[in-house]
């Protein structure tokens, strides 16, 4: 049986492993580019792709909290309007040693869910749905808020933004290579090389996306473990997850791009997936998360 500390350490190791793997893939991509398009300067493609990707990601990074909150139709609340939730959040921040309390938002929706956004603890916000507040008891709300706060504390939003930049870069490069392979009659590269480049151009973006999803699932487990450590009450979060997973309501304002921010995948109901083990999911299967929490 793994202790909380073991789980947290293992998670951090996995994140590092995934990052290293990512860097290897990019290097491999760069090498292949260099090999195929030597006289074109494969490096310049990579730089352009990275700049493009970075600009869009950086804009997202700085504006995301406001944008996501606006899309979700979230209403900011203060301590007077929601004293119970605010005091729970305040106490959690005391436990985490965070001097600045994230802004609190409420979304009018019967589906129980919550998300955290913001690039660092001083520019962060947590949003909860009215469905969550009505259907969960104090202990469970505490668990959910602790999970979201842990995302902020672990700088997960920043990490995932970075990962998404990389995935975007790889996808753009893969796209460019794919088009070039089809439409160019390159005297520089032999037939085999061309085919190889083509396959690579298709597979790498898919691989990158899978890595992104693996990382996202990893950070979810980490947030669960951190939350349990913060509240010293894993059962609170476990029973909250149970209630959330059994709820049939759909979250109306959810978008696939921001799905990873939520405590539980808001899209899965739309696709009819049942939380089974799939490498395409942003969140780990709920049953697995509950099992890990209850074994702490």
């Amino acid at each position, binding site marked *: 049986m793994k202790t909380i500390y073991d789980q947290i350490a293992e998670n951090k190791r996995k994140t590092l492993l995934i990052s290293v793997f990512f860097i290897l893939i990019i290097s491999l991509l760069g090498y292949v580019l260099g090999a195929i398009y030597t006289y074109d300067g494969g490096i310049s493609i990579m730089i352009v792709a990275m700049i493009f990707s970075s600009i869009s990601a950086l804009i997202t990074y700085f504006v995301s909290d406001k944008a996501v909150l606006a899309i979700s139709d979230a209403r900011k609340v203060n301590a007077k309007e929601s004293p119970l939730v605010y005091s729970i959040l305040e106490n959690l921040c005391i436990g*985490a*040693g965070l001097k600045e309390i994230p802004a609190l938002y409420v979304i009018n929706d019967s589906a129980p869910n919550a998300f955290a956004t913001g690039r660092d603890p001083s520019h962060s916000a947590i949003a909860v749905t009215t469905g969550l507040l009505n259907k969960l008891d104090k202990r469970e709300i505490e668990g959910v808020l602790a999970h979201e706060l842990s995302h902020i504390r672990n700088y997960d939003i920043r990490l995932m933004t970075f990962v998404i930049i990389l995935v975007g870069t790889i996808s753009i490069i893969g796209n460019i290579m794919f088009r070039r392979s089809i439409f160019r009659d390159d005297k520089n590269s032999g037939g085999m090389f061309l085919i190889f480049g083509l396959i690579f151009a298709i597979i790498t973006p898919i691989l990158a996306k899978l890595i992104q999803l693996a990382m996202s699932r990893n950070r979810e487990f980490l947030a669960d473990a951190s939350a349990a450590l913060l509240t010293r009450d894993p059962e609170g979060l476990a029973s909250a997850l149970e209630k959330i997973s059994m709820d049939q309501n759909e979250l109306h304002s959810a978008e696939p791009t921001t799905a990873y921010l939520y405590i539980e995948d808001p899209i899965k109901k739309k696709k009819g997936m049942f939380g089974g083990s799939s490498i395409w999911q942003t969140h780990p299967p709920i049953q697995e998360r509950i099992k890990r929490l209850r074994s702490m």
Partner: protein
Amino acid sequence: MTTSLIVLGAIALLIGFIWITYNKLITLRMRVKEAWADIDVQLKKRYDLLPDLIETARKATAVDEDILTKVTKLRSSAMEDATKGKSVEERGKIENQISNAMRSIKIQVEAYPDIKSHGELNNLMEKVTDIEEKIAYARRFYNGNILSYNTQLSSFQLS
């Protein structure tokens, strides 16, 4: 020539390592102090809350007089210790006793027949619950920091 260079390099590395670890220990110790200060903030809020609570509970005869006198005494000792700058362990002992007394008070107030109608007492008990929770969370943060500090200290001593 090269051997002496290697030896110098090794010594430099060792010094660097000791310097970094030493600094890390200082940082962790500072964090422990700050975490205790955070607990202190909550404890002070409790000191402020207690007189009102004791008086209201006494008037409503909702709680046994001996507990109320005990809490009053503990409170003054605790505040005295705070100004004297007593150690964390000593202050911790008294504060734990206060927390235990708060628990007994809470049980008695909840058993009190007319509690729902006594708005003021109700209000104060809610504040008490909140403050106890805040103290608990502050303690958790403190313990986490102590753990980091002690872990670093023991591994440093071993090496």
